[in-house]
């Protein structure tokens, strides 16, 4: 299998879906079409994952057979293959969930088009080996997610959130585009392997010398890229759009936005910091301090804001800010443990946070309100959803046999290597978050409906009754089992998946050599 096919599958299916939706009015046909697309993508990603883990060096694909510094390169190492697999499986589950969740909405083919477009963008950004292509893929992710956030157009809040997200996201990606300018002006190339080769002084075919000393250009590049990542991954000064945008989206979309879309900029930053330009000297200390301070601020901000929320999805959204803060802190250590912890945390957080949003979405779908004080007592009539909600919260708080505990512990280990105070940040914020989740759970399970609200369920005396959709229940049970299973298998998975991924991501020599060898072969054969 050529690895170039993986991002093409969802793109091709997305391209023809509006046309199909124009002629075919049946909802079932469109759902089946989208499911086929995501099953094929998941299968291709699984193949890609097996290939990446069985090959010694990164997999390379030249788009249009143009060799490395000239054309666009796709380069997949174990780090990206692992996240691609997580992403495509989550997309498959979200599509199944959407069959139940979106049953009352019209224009469903546009929804699935945007969802497949989002999948293309995420997989493309993870697989690409070209700095400019990352910008293009960010815009693809952006366009798809801005349209999905505002998909329910009659909701004024959703439209406002989508506009806010759109304008700030477009500005952030523009800043990254400017960063590309500085890199191109000083290195004369935008291929990641070529950039890394020049930075480390390794020869590379068909390329120019750097123009002067690249230190200043690198400093500006990192400043602009980190400012983009801070906005796109919703860390402290750039977080303000997330608590509006993620809750306003339909729940399966919130799950994907919170689990994956905020993780992609973190992955890109990790790729730059660990593979392409591992910073040395003065700049290393500055970048490390910036990432640690911003990450700790987001963790504190996210966890304290969780305490005062009444909207169940807003609560989960603030938890996302806290977790991206952890990932930032993990990256900021600039050590092998840090990268390994962040890799594993991206996977675990994506799974657990998606499950939490899907469970919250199931409650909202059944009760028609987002305020968990109003849906008090609903948990008893929805056992699967409550089970999923409890498993996801316990995992995110960090209760031992569940998956996010292990990655949080790894991040803690990495931080304690630097300073004990940083480790304490993780413990305090987790405790605060645990209290916030506990409060929500108490309401959902046994709370009494508050006085003074009678528009939702006056007909019932013992609180609202939830009806669970079979598709949604199935997805949540599968994911809850995965959360528990990954948690129990964690010691093995860390050895087999996370450590090889981080080792290969830090090995810049093989990252460059894989591209160079193939490029030289193509050039030699004419």
């Amino acid at each position, binding site marked *: 299998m050529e690895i170039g096919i993986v991002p093409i599958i969802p793109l091709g299916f997305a391209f023809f879906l509006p046309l199909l939706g124009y002629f075919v009015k049946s909802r079932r046909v469109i759902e089946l079409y989208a499911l086929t697309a995501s099953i094929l993508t998941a299968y291709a990603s699984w193949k890609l994952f097996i290939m990446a883990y069985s090959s010694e060096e990164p997999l390379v694909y030249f788009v249009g057979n143009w060799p490395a510094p000239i054309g666009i390169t796709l380069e997949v190492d174990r780090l990206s293959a692992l996240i691609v697999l997580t992403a495509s499986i989550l997309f498959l589950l979200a599509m199944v969930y959407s069959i139940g969740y979106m049953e009352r909405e019209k224009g469903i083919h546009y929804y699935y088009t945007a969802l497949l477009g989002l999948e293309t963008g995420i997989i493309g950004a993870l697989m690409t080996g070209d700095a400019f292509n990352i910008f293009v893929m960010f*815009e693809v992710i952006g366009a798809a997610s801005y349209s999905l956030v*505002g998909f329910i157009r*009659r909701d004024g809040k959703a439209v406002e959130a989508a*506009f806010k997200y759109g304008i700030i996201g*477009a500005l952030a990606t523009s800043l990254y585009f400017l960063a590309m*300018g500085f890199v*191109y002006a000083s290195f004369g190339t935008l291929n990641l392997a070529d950039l890394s080769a020049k930075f480390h002084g390794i020869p590379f075919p068909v390329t120019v010398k750097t123009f002067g000393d690249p230190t200043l250009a690198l400093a500006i590049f990192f400043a602009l890229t980190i400012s983009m990542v801070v906005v796109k991954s919703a860390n402290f000064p750039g977080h303000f759009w997330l608590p509006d945008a993620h809750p306003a989206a339909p729940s399966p979309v919130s799950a994907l936005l919170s689990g994956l879309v905020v993780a992609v900029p973190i992955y890109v930053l990790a790729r730059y910091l660990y593979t392409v330009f591992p910073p040395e000297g003065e700049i290393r200390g500055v970048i490390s301090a910036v990432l640690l301070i911003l990450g700790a601020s987001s963790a504190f901000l996210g966890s304290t804001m969780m305490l005062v929320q009444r909207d169940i999805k807003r609560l989960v959204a603030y938890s996302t800010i806290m977790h991206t803060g952890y990932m930032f802190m993990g990256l900021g250590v600039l050590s092998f443990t840090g990268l390994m912890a962040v890799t594993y945390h991206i996977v675990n957080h994506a799974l657990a946070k998606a499950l939490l949003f899907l469970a919250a979405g199931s409650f909202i779908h059944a009760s028609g309100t987002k305020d968990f004080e109003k849906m008090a007592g609903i948990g008893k009539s929805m056992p699967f959803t409550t089970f999923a909600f409890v498993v996801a919260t316990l995992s995110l708080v960090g209760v031992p046999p569940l998956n996010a505990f292990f990655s949080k512990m790894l991040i803690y280990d990495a931080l304690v290597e630097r300073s004990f105070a940083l480790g304490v940040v993780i413990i305090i914020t987790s405790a605060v978050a645990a209290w916030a989740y506990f409060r929500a759970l108490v309401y959902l399970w046994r709370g009494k409906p508050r006085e003074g609200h009678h528009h939702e369920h006056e007909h019932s005396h013992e609180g609202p009754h939830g009806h669970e959709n079979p598709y949604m229940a199935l997805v949540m049970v599968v994911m809850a089992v995965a959360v528990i299973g990954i948690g129990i298998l964690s010691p093995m998975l860390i050895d087999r998946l996370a450590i090889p991924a981080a080792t290969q991501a830090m090995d810049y020599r093989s990252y460059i050599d894989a591209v160079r060898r193939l490029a030289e072969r193509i050039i030699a054969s004419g």
Partner: protein
Amino acid sequence: MISFLLAYITITLFAMLFLGIYGVATRSNLIKKIIMLNIANDAINMLFILIGYRMVFPVFPPVYEKHITFREFLEKSVDPLPQALVLTAVVIGMAMNILLTTYAIQFYRLHGTVDARDIAEVMRGDDE
């Protein structure tokens, strides 16, 4: 003189960029926000084109023609890559503009205004 002009253009473009970012942050009118975003984007695009420019005379477009020698072409033609990148960015920017403008129109239909400050008051009223 030419270096003065270069510095002048660069400073102007950076001023435009910062003006655009300031405008996106402070204007409350959604349409003005979109316009300011475009100003920032265009400043970045022009900076990009400036990177590929050659400070020589006469400067050629990056299209090889028979009447100039190849060496002369290499020395005096501008770099085509930034132009290609800017072309991509302009197309993406247009798509983004359409999407944001659609939201602004939808906003106007729902609330009868395109001012974010008015809308914030409406929202606060809804919550009570």
